[in-house]
């Protein structure tokens, strides 16, 4: 098949149809009388036969290199050649950064409409492999910022489409790092100072709680949920930490938290209570998931983050006077109408966290004793994760060496993956 014809046909399809989904096909269209043959066009879906992909790419590459190498004066003809060739290059290979750079230049010079470029990227994102390239996500960000230059209002509704895109991509390609960091970025673009933004964050947190329940092993989702929690806390108190750069060392050495400690008394106590309630409910929610879906590292990691956040809340004065809020109304029902086990409702003091771990370990031991076949692997994982959480809590609270030593020796016994606990155990024993 003539390459020039293939290239022109593909561009004609893209010019005359609003394509919504794109895919590579292991075969070509059998309707040879069709004007778009060998491409397959069904409704708004376009299939490119795999057989011709390299031919089209090489051809587009030749045109692109030839035209961009020329002088800088853009005639209509060269602009069209650049638009079409970069479009073909990027459809086949979203990592082709020079083609994306050229498209940015064409946007600056008003040859490409940025809103149409966003739609074009939407189309690219229907092809899973393209969503794993950081450069195309950056291109998207750049185009959005470009559009915003000409918008006077910062209307939150404009971000809804971005949220939808990241959600679709995260489902197409689970744990997609760039989709989730893009979504974190959206949270930062929305300020925390209006009623609309607060209801946006409330809603986003709600969406994420539902999402993680359906994607229980996807830690990236939990990470985003954490960012939502932080952002919503900032709606209540704009001095609330973004947690950038804060880790266990800071908590143990009580550094990077001093500024929050000051002026705590003057804080609106009902806002503080709202923040504490938010985090407390999240901890309860996570423990409930851990009991319902045993053996998931992601859930336990999320709980690690929350326990860390809880200590930070305490050190920063949000849990002033150690008031134990009465959230433990008997008979509380969650969204799914399940009664919540009382162990999940305990106030997240370190002793209660340790108790939760031990409760999970006991449950596993009971189940394994009853029936050896019951989802054995997830049970073993649950036990290991629970012991690890106990170790995490112990170290975070700077507990006695003996507590830590006992835990490490237990973990060394059951750990068959890394050498970590074995080495630590030797260190403590010597």
């Amino acid at each position, binding site marked *: 098949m003539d390459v020039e014809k293939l290239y022109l046909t593909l561009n004609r399809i893209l010019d005359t149809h609003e394509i919504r989904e794109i895919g590579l096909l292991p075969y070509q269209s059998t309707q040879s009388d069709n004007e778009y043959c060998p491409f397959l066009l069904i409704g708004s879906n376009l299939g490119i036969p795999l057989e011709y*992909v*390299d031919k089209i*790419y*090489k051809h587009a*590459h030749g045109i692109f*290199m030839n035209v*961009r*190498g020329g002088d800088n004066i853009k005639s209509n003809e060269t602009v069209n050649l650049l638009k079409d060739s970069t479009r073909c290059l990027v459809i*086949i*290979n979203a*990592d*082709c*950064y*020079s083609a994306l*750079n050229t498209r*940015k230049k064409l946007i600056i010079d008003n040859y490409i409409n940025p809103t149409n470029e966003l739609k074009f990227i939407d189309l690219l994102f229907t092809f899973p492999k393209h969503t794993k390239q*950081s*450069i195309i996500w*950056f291109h998207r960000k*750049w185009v959005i910022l470009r559009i915003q230059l000409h918008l006077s209002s910062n209307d939150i509704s404009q971000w809804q489409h971005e949220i939808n895109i990241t959600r679709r991509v995260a489902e197409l390609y689970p*744990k997609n*790092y760039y989709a*989730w*960091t893009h979504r*974190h970025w959206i949270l*930062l673009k929305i300020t925390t100072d209006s009623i609309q933004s607060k209801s946006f964050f409330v809603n986003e947190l709600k969406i994420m709680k539902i999402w993680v329940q359906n994607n229980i*092993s*996807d*830690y*990236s989702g939990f*990470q985003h949920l954490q*960012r939502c929690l932080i952002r919503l806390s900032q709606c209540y108190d704009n001095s609330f930490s*973004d*947690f*950038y*750069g*804060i*880790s*266990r*060392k800071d908590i143990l050495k009580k550094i990077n938290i001093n500024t929050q400690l000051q002026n705590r008394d003057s804080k609106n106590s009902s806002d503080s209570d709202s923040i504490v309630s938010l985090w407390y409910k999240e901890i309860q929610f996570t423990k409930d998931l851990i009991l319902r879906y045993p053996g*998931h*590292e*992601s859930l336990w*990691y999320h709980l*690690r*983050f929350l326990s*860390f*956040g809880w200590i930070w809340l305490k050190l920063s004065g949000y849990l002033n006077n150690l008031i134990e809020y009465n959230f433990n109304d008997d008979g509380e029902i969650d969204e799914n109408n399940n009664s919540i086990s009382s162990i999940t409702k305990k106030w997240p003091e370190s002793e209660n966290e340790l108790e939760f771990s031990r409760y999970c370990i006991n449950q596993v031991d009971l189940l394994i004793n009853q029936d050896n076949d019951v989802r054995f692997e997830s049970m073993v994982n649950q036990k290991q994760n629970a012991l*690890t959480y106990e170790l995490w809590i112990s170290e975070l609270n700077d507990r006695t060496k003996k507590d830590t030593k006992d835990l490490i020796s237990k973990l060394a016994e059951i750990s*068959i*993956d*890394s*050498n*970590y606990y074995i*080495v630590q155990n030797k260190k403590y024993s010597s």
Partner: protein
Amino acid sequence: MDTSEKQTRLLVDLHVKYIQSLDTKKDDLEYWLTEHLRLSGVYWGLTALDLLNNVDALKKEDVVKYVVSCQHDNGGFSGHIGHDPHLLYTLYAVQILVIEDALDAVNVDKIVEYVASRQDRDTGAFTGDEWGEIDTRFSYCALSCLSLLKRLDAVNVSKAVEFIMLCKNFDGGFGNSPGAESHAAQIFCCVGALAIVNSLHLVDADLLGWWLCERQLKNGGLNGRPEKLEDVCYSWWVLSTLSILGRLHWINREKLIEFVLTAQDSEGGGIADRPGDMADVFHTLFGLTGLSLLEYPDLKPVDPVYCLPKHVVQRIGLAERYHHKEFQ
């Protein structure tokens, strides 16, 4: 590839042939899809060959000539002739030239100028190119590049460190930007960059080391984030960081070696991301560097900070910027 029998040894000759053959596959779609980053491919291949004691398998003259042809007037390098300059490819170019001992073939001052111009004065972060993408990967590229050129004075190092530290998370790991999830490859970039500027004391080493060890799975392989699949390239991102922190012995060495060896293509050579998949030069290098850190025989030692053969780093007189506590 043949997975019926487990590979138990490193297929040195096959890997050398595999890397040599990469440039002859111009009819493959894969060749064209990676055309824009061919310079990276040369770095991955050349470093792998050096570790395999076969650096001459690619002709030095050709390699240097090619690298020179990728430099632009502004000092930066593009991923291939005709593409745009970018910090990623600028580091790869410098790494290749250092291996070949051929820095005098290019205008070093212009490279320094280009790299320095990538730093954002306010945040200390680095942008990949003039379009402004920010990522901790680029912080590593800039600092590694300038360190190899011995021109760290050209940027604001303390600001650069400040930005990297903003990307540290509660688990001791690092993400690509402040607030982003910890990711083993980003962790290598951040810890490597901190090592280069003598700031390892800022790393929560015990906590991070623990998190990194939790990347090892039952099959011996390592993943890069919780509940992700194992992948040979994490043998590098995770191990190099543990090595920099002097905690390499926290990993189950034997199981990881077995995993990497099983991902070799026993017919065509090269190493894949995991057993049974297609080999590529990226995973070939990071499988080999992983094995090298694990002190596998037949391989030259690799420097965990610069991802260059150790003898190269020694030749240019750079100090070792990592802690020593390897396998006993």
